[in-house]
């Protein structure tokens, strides 16, 4: 966990908390890391996943598509305590992917004619306008997998896949938390979603430590 430092850019897989890596997030909270620049699809819920980083005021800036399910993010934004950069969801996914696959940017027409185009360069291709969207990478990427082998090959759990394979490629250092860690050779190469070459560290997951919003108290 020596990679975590104040002010770091941190990218997390997950969507509405599902697929946020719980054990790694707990470690970041315990180490009292602050001033994080968080790149994630959303800010989850106040006590779920990356939402806890927001609630405990560890985040300086967020790049996301949605913060609506975590009122604390909105409150901190209104108070000027946190900076939020919004990207349309599909564009955000492609920006993370672009960073992860080593591209210099992507051309997207989503958001043309809306405030989502503000501050972005317009590029015309064969007479059609596109926005130049810049790639995203991070000092540290954190992901949650169902299974990992010792080389770092990853398999995800149903819709917990979401942004995780994209985020796994976009970290300078990528740390995967897995529910199950198996020997090299135990995963069928056909089922591997993220090739282990993108993953630097694997840690065993202690499992989700929060209640989901749909669970009855």
């Amino acid at each position, binding site marked *: 966990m020596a990679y975590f430092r104040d002010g770091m850019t941190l990218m997390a897989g997950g969507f*509405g908390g599902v697929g946020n890596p719980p054990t790694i997030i707990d470690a970041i909270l315990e180490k009292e890391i602050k001033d994080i620049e968080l790149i994630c699809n959303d800010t989850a819920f106040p006590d779920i996943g990356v939402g806890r980083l927001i609630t405990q005021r560890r985040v300086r800036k967020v790049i996301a598509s949605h*913060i609506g399910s975590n009122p604390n993010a909105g409150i901190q934004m209104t108070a000027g305590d946190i900076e939020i950069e919004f990207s349309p969801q*599909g564009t955000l996914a492609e920006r993370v992917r672009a960073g992860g696959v080593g591209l210099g940017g992507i051309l997207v027409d989503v958001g043309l004619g809306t405030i989502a185009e503000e501050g972005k360069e317009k590029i015309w291709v064969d007479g059609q306008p596109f926005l130049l969207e810049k790639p995203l990478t991070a000092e540290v990427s954190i992901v949650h997998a169902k299974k990992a082998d010792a080389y770092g090959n990853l398999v995800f759990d149903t819709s*917990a*896949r979401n942004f995780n*394979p994209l985020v796994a490629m976009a970290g300078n250092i990528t740390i995967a938390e897995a529910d199950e860690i198996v020997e090299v050779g135990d995963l069928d190469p056909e089922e591997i979603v993220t090739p282990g070459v993108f993953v630097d560290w694997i840690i065993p997951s202690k499992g989700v430590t929060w209640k*989901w919003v*749909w669970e009855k108290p």
Partner: protein
Amino acid sequence: MGLGETVDIRQTIAKRAAQEVRDGMVINLGIGIPTLVADYIPKDIQVFLHAENGILGFGPTPPVGEENPMLCNAGGFPVTIQPGASYFDSSIAFAITRRGKLDMTILGALEVSQEGDLANWIVPGKRVPGMGGAIDLAQKAKKVVVVTNHCDKKGKSKIVQSCSLPLTAKACVDLIITDRAVMEVSPKGLVLKEIMEPYTIEQIVESTEAKLIIPDRIRRI
């Protein structure tokens, strides 16, 4: 307005929206009233429900106690999957959207204009939840259906001549379904197609800021 009545209105709107669903469609349902539409899709037709977090072909809510917390819709609530379903990452979810493979999306609205402009993700300085996938969906789905209350909580028409809020997408909406009426965006303007009981044409015209084209025939629901 009592809570019971509000719930009932939401169900009525969802039920009408489900009539737009055709066999074989690939559909994305937004959060709120759109989510309820799934309950009213006729059992004898097969559709593929699409979720931004990477599912094509999800099904109803599982029984209590049988949830897989990792298998959720884009709103974070547990779902099941249907035969033929697939999982993929969110970049593929939006590849489906941008590539024109999404037959229909049903979305909520803050304002819709008579030209089909949609505003549904930001009230500057007041409510700034972020656009999520709304811009991608509104701009790229083949058919965009908006489901919404006809008027806001202050009684102000949400169906307007021109949106005052920042747009989600321009000229994207095909059909508007409210608790009072069904309206179609056409090249000539906004056409009143159906009116919901107990409203009269006069009451709907009066409570709609947008200019409505009133055809000779209007269906009553």
